[in-house]
């Protein structure tokens, strides 16, 4: 029993085209399924046709919001494969831009969460505050969204002391605003009524369904790539991974808001402590890395992002694979959307639940090859030579 109600592929709540197939009885959602294939662009195939340096700019455009994460992951990946060492100051600058991009992405998500519960004013105010971060990005890198900052071998522009001062004062003001939003999330009765208890994902389910990022951390699964497998200079910058145990959409919102505060702290620390020196190792525009494979993992704003490359000695990669965090969270999203027992999901909860996993479907749509003949080759991270992992 139940009526089929499609939410999408064109719907005011979706920033991209996604189809959520709901089976609905009255106001209650009985069954759900997600089809995320509408934004497939053939990126992995296109990456096989470009040289490594050209591929960086294509990898940047896999997603507009997570573009810092994708370029950092790609650069670390190829640097590990080809044995290129990025200078120390470059790694600090990369960390600064990565954390700034995290602030921008989480502020955008806060606006989208507000929009999905109908809170237009918070949406406008969050995007107004995000402008501050985007202006800072433009000042450092030259672009607001597609920053073109990371290259294989380092970064392209430096941050001078005047810009650093400006960044610190703008971020201090932003921190005040974000503390206000945190208080709003904790105290506003209507926001709490719409998010507390909504989209329940127990800890065991989060582990089973391999949720990553804030979705897992709000269900008391403490998994953060910056802590478990540090890259860049994350071992030298102090921060606390944010974990909540409420297992609902409110927990995820609080995790992200706290992460904004942590990231602002990290950027301020890094601006003071970054060593001076070179920012870029010279790399020829067309180079041929030795044949082999490499994997790089990065904590994107949405979770654990993984890039895999296999080269056969030519100037273009043989195979490049991108596994985005939203792909890992989709199974958790489907589990959250179904009503089971006394966990009841209303139609009105569907935008909140789907938005709380922070879906970035354009990152996610890849062709999945299912090998039925049984000749699957497994490679474990420990077996890759440590020098090739890329740091």
């Amino acid at each position, binding site marked *: 029993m139940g009526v089929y109600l499609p939410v999408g592929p064109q719907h005011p709540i979706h920033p991209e085209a996604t189809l959520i197939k709901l089976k609905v009885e009255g106001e209650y959602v009985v069954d759900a399924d997600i089809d995320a294939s509408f934004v497939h662009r053939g990126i992995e195939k296109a990456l096989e046709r470009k040289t490594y340096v050209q591929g960086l700019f294509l990898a940047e455009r896999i997603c507009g919001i997570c573009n810092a994460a994708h370029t950092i992951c790609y650069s670390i990946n190829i640097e590990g494969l080809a044995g290129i060492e990025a200078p120390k100051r470059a790694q600090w600058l990369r960390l600064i831009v990565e954390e700034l991009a995290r602030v921008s992405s989480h502020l955008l998500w806060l606006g989208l969460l507000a929009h999905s519960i109908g809170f237009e*004013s918070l949406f*406008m105010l969050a995007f107004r505050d995000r402008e501050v971060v985007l202006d800072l990005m433009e000042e450092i890198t030259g672009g607001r969204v597609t920053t073109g900052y990371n290259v294989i071998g380092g970064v392209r522009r430096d941050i001078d002391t005047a810009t650093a001062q400006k960044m610190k004062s703008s971020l201090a003001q932003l921190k005040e605003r974000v503390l206000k939003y945190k208080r709003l999330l904790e105290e*506003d009765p209507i926001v709490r009524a*719409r998010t507390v208890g909504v989209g329940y994902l127990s800890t065991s389910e989060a582990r089973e369904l391999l949720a990553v990022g804030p979705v897992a951390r709000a269900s008391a699964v403490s998994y953060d790539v910056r802590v478990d497998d540090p890259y860049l200079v994350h071992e030298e910058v102090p921060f606390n991974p944010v974990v909540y145990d409420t297992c609902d959409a409110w927990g995820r919102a609080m995790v992200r808001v706290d992460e904004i505060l942590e990231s602002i702290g990290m950027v301020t620390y890094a601006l003071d402590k970054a060593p001076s020196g070179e920012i870029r190792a010279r790399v020829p525009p067309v180079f041929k890395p030795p044949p082999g494979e490499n994997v790089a993992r990065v904590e994107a704003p949405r979770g654990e992002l993984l890039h895999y490359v296999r080269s056969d000695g030519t100037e273009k990669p043989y195979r490049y694979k991108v596994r985005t965090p939203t792909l890992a969270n989709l199974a958790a999203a489907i589990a959250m959307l179904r009503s089971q027992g006394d966990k009841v999901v209303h*139609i*009105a909860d569907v935008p909140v639940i789907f938005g709380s996993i922070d879906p970035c479907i354009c990152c996610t749509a890849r062709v999945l090859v299912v090998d039925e003949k049984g000749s699957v080759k497994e490679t474990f991270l420990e077996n890759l030579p440590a020098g090739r992992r890329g740091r």
Partner: protein
Amino acid sequence: MISKLVQVFVYPGILYMVALAFFLEWLDRKLVAKLQNRVGPHYAGPYGLLQPLADFIKLLTKESIVPSGADGLLFTLCPVMAFIVVTTAVSFVPMTSTQGLLSTEGDAVAVLALITIYLLLVYTAGASSPSRYSLVGAVRAAHMLLGFELPLMLSCLGVIASAGSFKLSEIAAQGVWRVFGLHALGFAIFLIAAEAELDRLPFDIPEAEQEIVSGWLVEYSSWRLALLRLTKDMELLLFSGLATTLFLGGPAGPAPPSAENLLYPLYFLAKTAFVVFLLSLIRASSARIRLDQFVILCWRYLVPASFAYLALTVWVV
């Protein structure tokens, strides 16, 4: 005869009401924009005053589509009847003098009955469209009826009891401000119930854009949609006019008898604008509440409060 026609159709008749409705929509949009640090309507006319009229005309030029699964007669009849019902209700509200365009004994009850008929038309409009989204929206609208009708009626009844008359013209002629002390409770209940009736945030559940894409309105286009949107604006005029008459003393104010015809409409406009400001403030600072939470809110808090208000007004007066 000619003067009667001018009264009915131009001033203070339908044209005046439509112009006021557009003005209040402009005021609402501009206020919400300013509260959100934006600009609001800007380009159509001075300060964007002609924007609602421009939207109305734009909708009239679109293609009129009747979905093939829709109940043809009901689909067309609902917007027309909704407009007629709400305009009739607005004509009872005294806007230019202490006497409304229509006035009869017991017209406060007539206005409340017409409001309920409008809500039934909302349900019919949603149910006559073949889309699932519109059915969900229509059912939600009917669900909400169960919640806010009673507090709305009871808060009006409290004022009627304290004024001692069922006739809106007599209540307006008294010119008493009922916003302080006990009546503040009634004013607050009326404002919240008005937000729910008008389908505005935080209660725009039947038209939740993020969940069911405009809900019961989703299949309407062109002149039917223009008429439905005009009906919404007239409803805004109706409720703010009702609030002005019942709680803020109507169009009466200090004026020498010769200038009454000029000053009373202006007083009405000012008081109505104040009520619209309050409604816009609530709208700009709230999120949308869920349907089951709304019904719980109504029956747990609003209904007892409105019963208490009615009982206290009858007892005190």
